[in-house]
């Protein structure tokens, strides 16, 4: 949904709603527009989180708080973050000189790129022959945000259990098990067991340079096939992608453009 007031632009994508405030409009107009907008469109704000883009303008701290309180009260949703298009954020140095206040507003400001970084780690303690390897049990990464990078082969009997994505830059041997909350990518031969989107993320996919297993699990769905993988064409392997479609696991050649996969052979339940 996109909506345009004079001083205010509202963009909703899924459960993320962004309020962008016009640089030129005076603060009183902005507050009025926000109030009006929320009163007219209150039915749109049932769930989700709101972020406010203040543009290039320097707001005072109490002005930001006014906007935030207004949105919280009128919509019933919380304001999760403030963003800005300029590097100097939120505060007009002409209006207030108190460094403590500057600090406070900077804490509220979160750069927009903070979710894009993949966390690469190769922690020897994170995998072991026998014990379950869950990283940082207290911190649960948002699905599809954190990734575990593994550079050594996953051998028989190895169990990897990670709430984010798992990337293996080696083979996954028969008898190895990988459980990932997000996607699983294998830059090698996949002959072990993979469960992507564990326990229940139907968006997850499994990709492999050479997919040589007959059992794949995505979310709560198990897929099996009877294809013979004993003589793979290693000279010219076909990368494959496994995904959920109509409640079944499908496997299709993976041609690199993520959104364009379709069709494929079904791995029956």
């Amino acid at each position, binding site marked *: 949904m996109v909506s345009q007031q004079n001083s205010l632009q509202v963009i909703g994508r899924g459960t993320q709603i962004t309020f962008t405030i016009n640089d030129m409009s005076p603060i009183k107009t902005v507050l009025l527009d926000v109030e009006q907008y929320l009163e007219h469109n209150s039915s749109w704000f049932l769930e989700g989180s709101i972020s406010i883009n203040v543009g290039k303008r320097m707001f005072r701290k109490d002005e930001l708080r006014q906007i935030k309180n207004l949105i919280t009260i009128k919509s019933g949703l919380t304001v999760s973050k403030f963003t800005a298009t300029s590097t100097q954020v939120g505060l007009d140095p002409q209006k207030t000189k108190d460094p403590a206040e500057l600090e406070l507003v900077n804490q509220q400001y979160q750069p927009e790129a903070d979710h894009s970084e993949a966390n690469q780690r190769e922690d020897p303690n994170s995998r*072991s*022959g*026998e014990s379950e390897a869950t990283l940082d049990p207290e911190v649960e990464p948002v699905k599809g945000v954190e990734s575990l990078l593994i550079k*050594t*082969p996953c*051998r*028989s*009997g*190895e169990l990897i259990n990670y709430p984010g994505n798992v990337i293996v830059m*080696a*083979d996954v*041997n*028969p*008898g190895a098990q990988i459980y990932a909350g997000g996607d699983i990518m294998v830059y090698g031969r996949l002959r072990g067991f993979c469960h992507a989107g564990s326990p229940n993320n139907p968006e997850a996919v499994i990709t492999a340079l050479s997919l040589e297993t007959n059992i794949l699990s995505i979310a709560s769905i198990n897929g099996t096939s009877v294809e013979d993988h004993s003589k793979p064409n290693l000279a010219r392997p076909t990368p494959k992608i496994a995904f959920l479609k109509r409640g079944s696991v499908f496997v299709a050649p993976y041609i690199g453009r993520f959104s364009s996969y379709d069709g494929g052979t079904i791995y029956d339940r």
Partner: protein
Amino acid sequence: MTGKTIVITSGKGGVGKTTTTANIGTGLALRGHKVVIIDTDIGLRNLDVVMGLENRIVFDLVDVIEERCEPSKAMIRDKHKLDLFLIPAPQTRDKDCISSEQLSELCRQLEEDYEYIIIDCPAGIETGFKNAINAAEEAIIVTTPEVSAVRDADRVIGLLDAAGIKQPRLIINRIHPDLVAKGDMLDKDDIVDILAIDIIGLVPIDDKVITSTNQGVPVVHNKNSASGAAFNRIAGRIDGEDIPIQEPQSASFLKKIKAFVGINKGEYSHA
């Protein structure tokens, strides 16, 4: 003198760990090194039989660890008077009667006087296996060209990695060159592809291993046998020599004819 402790392990039973231990130990001793081989397969000892020393056992590994005797009392010298000594396992006890710390301590003690301490690991991945690998700083994995043995070797490599032994080396035992040539058996490259570790030797299948085991003379003494020569090369590689890996060759046409008419004097015959 600071020696090196090497464990010979496989996961799966019956792939030739004990034979390999006896032959590598003898091969290193034939090169003039001071070697101790330790049988850690408590309750199912075999290494003494393969070495032909079963009649000379008085004290064993558990007697040493429980301090009923000095290590030197339990060490049985090789029949051929090489600098090769065997510490046998007791037959009447079980794997839980020693701990990995005690075995490590014994190996550290032996390393002061001997160049190579070679541990024959029991099959499986339970207590006996854990004791053996914790005492060693290097490992040699024995496998056969069968899917089951390779799967177990893969598991063992993972366990060794978790125990801190990062670069195990691989011996592929009982290769049938004829079957490999026909494509009916896993070949060297298939196995390395799965296990992703370095090969230290390829040993062809050889009837002479069976006869020499029954006689209690390791086959490495017989340099004319294909397997004995292969074990001798492995001993050289452990010793740090740069010997290229040789793939076992199938018998020549002439030898097959000789075998057919019963005058096989060649080094190769397969079961």
